[in-house]
């Protein structure tokens, strides 16, 4: 009797195991597919013409890249259409395109860029220590950071905004319409801190998850009413599901995204600013915006540079 029970439960366990194995095999067989893979996978990247080796006189970083043969760039990997790495390890997004554009114009093949994922808290250390040559990843230019790193740009101006379900118009008024709404953002982040400090909604209505993707999942399941952070990040999510999500478009802060460079390297900073300037006038900026964040349905223009 005991033995028979044991055999029976083992049989059930074995069935469950093989079932699980089948389940996990299927997506692989489909080429990393699955239901939502179409929107999650990276498509083709923008084609940049690699410039003739442009010598940047007096730039230690440029000399380093040249001897190595390829640039090492710090990026983010969890922001769709901004700085993203898909299941196959392919990278794409607006920040990635900016990184590739800079590399191409410095005279290096953008396909040979070595990417490093640097968490927000470690960006200054990575640039100062020479671990990366430059950093492109929703890096806001602030006076405090300018004492530790150099900034080229801004190449994009973002602002705290709201991501809502497409049919929900109750928060179109922007931040003043948040009262009584369930708001979600990343744990401890500046945007959620602003919501708390300005008491835009009640404390019991605030949800904090480790990543924005988890907030977006809760938004789609109607467990929260809005996700708040920089509009660039929100547009990236809206672009992955334009039929279900949209960005309100009433930003209530200003974040200037710059390209982080080693502090002392003014020569490289000037060169990168020139590259950004050219991209704004010759339409490259617009082209890569439309291919990435522009898919969310909202328009944008290149911001004026702040050279120093």
């Amino acid at each position, binding site marked *: 009797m005991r033995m028979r029970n044991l055999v029976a439960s083992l049989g059930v366990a074995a069935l469950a195991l093989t079932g699980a194995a089948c389940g996990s095999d299927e997506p692989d067989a489909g080429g990393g597919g699955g239901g939502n893979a179409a929107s999650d996978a990276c498509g083709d990247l923008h084609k940049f013409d690699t410039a003739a080796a442009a010598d940047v006189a007096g730039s230690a970083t440029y000399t380093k890249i040249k001897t190595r043969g390829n640039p090492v760039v710090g990026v983010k990997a969890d922001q769709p259409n901004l700085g993203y790495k898909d299941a196959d390890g392919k990278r794409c997004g607006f920040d990635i395109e900016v990184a590739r554009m800079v590399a191409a114009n410095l005279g290096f093949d953008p396909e040979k860029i070595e990417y490093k994922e640097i968490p927000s*808290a470690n960006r200054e250390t990575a640039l100062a220590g020479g671990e990366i040559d430059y950093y492109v990843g929703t890096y806001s230019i602030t006076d405090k950071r300018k004492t530790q790193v150099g900034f080229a740009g801004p190449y994009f101006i973002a602002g705290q905004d709201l991501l809502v379900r497409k049919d929900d118009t109750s928060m179109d008024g922007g931040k003043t319409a948040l009262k009584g709404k369930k708001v*979600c953002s*990343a*744990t*401890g*982040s*500046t945007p959620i*801190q602003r919501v708390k400090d300005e008491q835009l909604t009640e404390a*019991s209505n605030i*949800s*904090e*998850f*480790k990543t924005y993707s*988890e907030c977006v*999942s*809760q938004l789609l*399941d*109607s*467990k929260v009413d809005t996700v708040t952070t920089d509009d660039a990040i929100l547009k990236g999510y809206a672009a992955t599901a334009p039929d279900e999500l949209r960005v309100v478009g009433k930003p209530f802060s200003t974040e200037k995204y710059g390209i982080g460079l080693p502090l002392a390297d003014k020569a490289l900073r000037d060169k990168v600013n020139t590259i950004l300037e050219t991209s704004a006038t010759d339409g490259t900026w617009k082209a890569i915006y439309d291919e990435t964040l522009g898919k969310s349905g909202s328009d944008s223009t290149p911001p004026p540079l702040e050279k120093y």
Partner: protein
Amino acid sequence: MLSVLTDNWELFVDGFWTTVRLFLIAAVLSLVFGTLLAGFRVSPVPALRAIGTGYVNILRNTPLTLVFAFLVFGAPKMQISLPTFFWSAVIALTVYTSAFVCEIVRSGINTISPGQAEAARSVGMTFMQVLGIVVLPQAFRAIVPPLTSVMIALLKNTTIAAGFSVAEAGAIPAVMAERGQNQMATLVWITVGFLILIIPLVFLQRWAERRMAVA
């Protein structure tokens, strides 16, 4: 080092207060539910025994993070709605911990010789009376130390709720990183906080053991 704590005193107090509430509610619920399950597992009704055994074998082998993820991300997709993330966390901790409580209580029940239960049955007590009056009071003596261990584990397990929108002690480091505070000092103070929270549990165990020894 000390300024890291004093400058952010409110954050620490709020975080640990949520931890304590989460722990106390989940502890009471899992003790009650776990004991009930143990009753199931030793009951004369085969269906109840099967439920008890099935529950323990499923929940004891499931990572807690998965239980959380199921309640917070999976349940809404199946149109099951839990009131708040705090209560989702309480439920996740309770269903997970009660599997362990069940097994501990059952092992305590097994330390009581079957002769006692048989004697109680022969004087006409019902199954509930046998368990409630004769077996469980004696069984608790044997299970105080392992039960305390499980409760301490539960206290520490509450930090997983930080990843599922409950701003308890485990969520403090993220806020401190954004404020530009030293991470190492933050983690040291959180450790100190947990050590302080464990002290009452240790005393409770000592008190219970002494009391049971007299009985």
